[in-house]
């Protein structure tokens, strides 16, 4: 146990913790946009899986990781559009349709994987880019400023999303539509259009979240490789009270616990592996239980909008 408290191990935990937060951040920030507009998309995990597959497949076949990322974003966008069609235009029950989308993504990604690859292959993913000057700070430079671009992107997304949601007319419209669609509608805001945009944006970011796993963190594709990360990301939105900064806190908490768990295994601390893997899921339930702040929840969350219905 004493091995755990050496400087290299602590720095290692921080470094992996920041990396591991990447997929959670992309997926949860995307979901926050959708939920703030009143739609909850439970298909995030399925979209992540399709994003992970497309990113990996295109990246490998073309040898260009950026094309892979683009493909993942594109596939995520299409699946987000499908979810918007089902939940906004067809006004389907959002919980069940999200599960349908999840099953679709899970099934299709394994189908395509088995059909196009002979087994698990690995790829050389995005390489770390050291930020000039900051990257030269002793210790901190290595830990904070020597990551790949997708990791930086995830952390830049947080203030950006915060700015859009709370400092722009568009963000105001999103929140108005999520709080009181009837009132927003009478003010001339196109409720359905706003929801299409946020759900599609959420899908795109979920696709990128998947790619961040397959071409930047783990650098391979496996069936069901997210193992429920997308659902944890949705829980993080609740945990973070629908605010990007809150989500950042939750994502870091989760990824640090995960990093700690991985390091315990590396150091051979005697603790049953299966229980270590269980930890994030148990923590999610706990986080949901302690973070129930009803007031923060968008009032119209999960309710399809019908004009003239009061």
């Amino acid at each position: 146990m004493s091995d755990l408290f050496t400087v290299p191990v602590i720095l290692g935990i921080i470094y992996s913790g920041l990396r591991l937060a990447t997929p959670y951040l992309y997926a949860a920030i995307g979901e926050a946009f959708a939920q703030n507009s009143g739609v909850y998309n439970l298909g995030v995990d399925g979209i992540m899986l399709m994003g992970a597959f497309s990113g990996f497949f295109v990246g490998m076949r073309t040898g260009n990781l950026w094309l892979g990322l683009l493909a993942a974003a594109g596939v995520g966008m299409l699946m987000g559009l499908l979810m918007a069609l089902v939940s906004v235009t067809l006004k389907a029950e959002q919980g069940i349709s999200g599960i349908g989308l999840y099953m679709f993504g899970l099934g299709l990604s394994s189908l395509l994987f088995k059909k196009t690859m002979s087994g698990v292959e690995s790829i050389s993913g995005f390489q770390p880019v050291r930020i000039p000057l900051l990257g030269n700070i002793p210790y901190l430079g290595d830990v904070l400023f020597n990551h790949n671009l997708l990791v930086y992107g995830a952390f830049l997304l947080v203030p950006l999303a915060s700015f859009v949601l709370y400092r722009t007319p568009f963000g105001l419209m999103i929140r108005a539509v999520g709080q009181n669609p009837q009132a927003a509608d009478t003010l001339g805001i196109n409720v359905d259009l706003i929801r299409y945009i946020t759900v599609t944006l959420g899908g795109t970011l979920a696709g990128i979240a998947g790619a961040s796993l397959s071409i930047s963190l783990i650098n391979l594709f496996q069936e069901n490789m997210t193992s429920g990360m997308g659902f944890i990301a949705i829980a993080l939105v609740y945990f973070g009270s629908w605010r990007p900064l809150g989500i950042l806190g939750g994502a870091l908490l989760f990824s640090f616990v995960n990093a700690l768990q991985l390091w315990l295994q590396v150091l051979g601390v005697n603790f049953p592996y299966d229980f270590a893997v269980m930890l994030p899921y148990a923590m999610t339930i706990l986080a949901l239980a302690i973070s129930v702040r009803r007031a923060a929840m968008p009032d119209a969350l999960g309710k399809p909008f019908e004009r003239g219905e009061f």
Partner: protein
Amino acid sequence: MPQRSEIKRTLNQVFEAILPLLAVPVALVIGALILLLLRANPGVAFAALVQGAVGSTFSVTQTLVKATPLLLVGLGITIAFRGGVINIGGEGQIIVGALSATALALSLNQAPGWLLLPLCLIVGTLSGAVWGAVPGVLKARLGVNEILSTIMMNAIALQLSNYLLRGPMIDPAEIEAGTRIAQSALLPRQAWLPRLVPQTLLHAGSILALVMAILVYIFLWRTTIGYRIRAVGLNPRAARYAGIPVPIYQALAIILGGAFAGLAGAVEVMGVQRRMLEGLSGGYGFSGIVAALFGNLHPLGTIPASVLFGGLLVGADKLQRAVQVPSAFVDTLMGLIVLFVVSSRIWAVRRARRRETYE
């Protein structure tokens, strides 16, 4: 004119009952497109699927074997959804039901069959209920989103099963042979559910599932508790004004859903595998949702729906051999069917609203 409105009501009910069926042609067309993209002949593929599901006596019994857990899980899903709560925890509930039935049968291996058989089924059911009670109580007391919590409970059950099957519950023969396959020892003979047709896997659990379907129908439509669960699901606010403690009935709906999935796990262990092994839940927690939705969330409708999807699952293996399309194709199709079925409800709702306006 009471008679005419009576006919109209019946017609509307028929319309709502067959609405999910419309999802089939749409799913088939999209399925055919996916097959074409994979460079497989859709005609050959679908023929193989049907052939695999009902082509021989054995395949028919296999279809029924797969339909059994689908029906049991689907009944639980039906109760939960009727109560307005979404239980996605079927997988985990199946796993704990199967684990506890196995543990009990192995520790009471000297007990007579008349005692052991019902005891294992009951314990499996109760463990599923307990696994459902965690999200149920969290929902009732704290308003925790049950979809997320049930999914987390799935992951926890899976890890628990991995731990037990590789450690404390592993078959001693596996350790001796050094193969260390993660599975339990074979259950004692008295804990096996009787087989119905020789040379097949069809077991008495299928009959049990049918009986349960009828019981759930009676429960939901002929008892006070069942009526209240449906009232809570239809309109929680009205139910609250009528004095029904809504959270308690929501929790009850999830717990009952868990009980049926737990029973499905016990039945699967005692009827088919006769031991606990990895992957026993086989995705039934999710495909059971498809069966329940397709059966229009009606216990009796879930019976044919389970047989249909049981056939689809069995046919998927044949599909793989005939046209080299991985069986994940069927999972993809099921996801699409869920999307179509929930989307198609808009027409039922629109009709109902028109009816209200004109009457």
